[in-house]
C-alpha cells in the first residue's frame, strides 16, 4: 500500500513568507506530481507566518484546473495551519472552483497541464 507523503511548505519556499505566485508554483508542482501518482499528501504549513491569495492560488487553487474536486478532497490535507489561514485557503479553494467553472478556462488549464507533462517526458 502506498504511504501518504508529507510536504513542508517552509522547506519548499525556504522562508516563512509565502507570498509570491512563483513560490506557490513550486509547491503546486510537487502536489500535482503526487496527486498524479494517486498518493495522499499532507501539506504542512509549520513555521509559515504570512500567506497571500496569490501564493495559495498558484499552489492549491491551480489544482482545480487539473484534478477532480473529489479527488483533491480525498488525497490532500493540510496540517499545522492557523485558523485564519484555513479561512483564507477555503476562500482560495471556493474562488478556484468558481474560476474553473468557466469551460474555456478549464480547457486552457487542461491544455497547459498536458503541455507541462509533455515537457516533462
Amino acid at each position: 500500500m502506498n504511504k501518504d507523503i508529507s510536504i513542508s511548505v517552509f522547506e519548499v519556499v525556504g522562508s516563512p513568507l509565502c507570498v509570491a505566485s512563483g513560490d506557490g508554483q513550486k509547491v503546486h508542482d510537487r502536489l500535482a506530481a503526487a496527486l498524479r501518482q494517486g498518493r495522499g499528501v499532507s501539506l504542512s504549513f509549520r513555521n509559515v507566518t504570512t500567506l497571500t491569495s496569490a501564493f495559495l492560488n498558484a499552489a492549491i487553487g491551480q489544482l482545480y484546473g487539473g484534478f477532480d474536486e473529489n479527488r483533491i478532497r480525498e488525497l490532500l490535507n493540510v496540517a499545522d495551519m492557523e485558523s485564519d489561514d484555513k479561512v483564507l485557503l477555503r476562500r482560495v479553494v471556493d474562488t478556484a472552483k468558481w474560476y474553473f467553472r468557466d469551460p474555456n478556462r478549464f480547457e486552457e488549464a487542461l491544455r497547459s497541464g498536458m503541455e507541462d507533462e509533455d515537457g516533462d517526458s
Partner: protein
Amino acid sequence: MNFALPTILHDWNGFAALARLHSQTEHCFLDNVEIDMKATDWFDADMCAPFGAILYRLGAELNSVHLVDIDPSVEKILSQNGFLSYYGREQIPDYWKTTVTYQRFDVEDDKYFSKYIENEFIRRYEIPKMSSRLMKKFHESIFEIFSNAVLHSHTKLGIFSCGQFFPKNNCLDFTVADLGVGVRKRVCDYLGNNLSPAEAISWAAAKNNTTKQGPIPGGLGLSLLCDFIDLNGGCIQIVSDAGYWRRKNKRTYASSLHQPFPGTVVNVEINTADPSSYILSSELADNEIF
C-alpha cells in the same frame, strides 16, 4: 519645464496633483524638469510612491529632474525616508521612527520586497504597537497589493512603495504604485467594453471578478483587502488611469481625476489601535477546506 507642486496629501487632491504633474511632463524628453516645491507645505510621506514613480518615468526619458525650494519640514521627512537620496540629498536618521523607507522594485524582486517588509515592519519593534493578529493581516495586505502589481501591471519600469506611521492618529499608511497598463485597459480588454477608469476599478474590486486567464485562478486579492479594511476601520484608495476609488467605513466612493496617472496606485491606511481578532468567519475543520 517647470512645475509648481502643491501640498500633497493622500487624498483625491493629492493624487490629482500628481496626475497633473505627469500630464504636464509626459512628453518631456532630454529636458530639464524642475519641480518647484515652494508651495508644498505638507507632503504625506507615503505619497512618495506615486511621486517617485512619475519622476522615475521622467528619468527613463532621459530628463534631468530637480526638486527645488523644498520647505525644511518637508525636506526633513523626505530625507528621513530615503526619497531625496534618489535626488542628490543625504538620508538623515529618523529619530521618531515613523517613516517606512521609499523603495523601487522590479517585478522579479519579490524576495527583495519580502526582505524590505521584514526590515521595515517585522523587525522594527518600535512601530507601531498593534495586536499580533492585526500585524499579520497588515503584512498579508501589503503582500496582496504587491502581488497584484506583479501579476497584473505588466510594468517594465517597476513598482514603488513607501509608508508612514502617524502615531497621534493611530494610523499607518502604506502606498504601492506601478507604472503598468492600468486597471481600465486590462478590464476593458477582458470584458470587451468601454468602462470608465473608475467603473473599471469598481469592477476589479468586486468579489470573484478577475481579468486573469490561464491555469492559475485569481479574483480574490482586492476583495480580501476590502474585507480587512472594513473590519479594521481603515481606508483603501485606488487610483488608476483617470479613475479614483475609495472604500472607507464600508462605503465605496468612485470618481474621476482630471488627468490620468500612468499606472496604478493602491494606498491602504490602517487603524493601528484596532483590537479585532480578524477571524473572518467561524473556525473551519480540516475536512471543510477542499
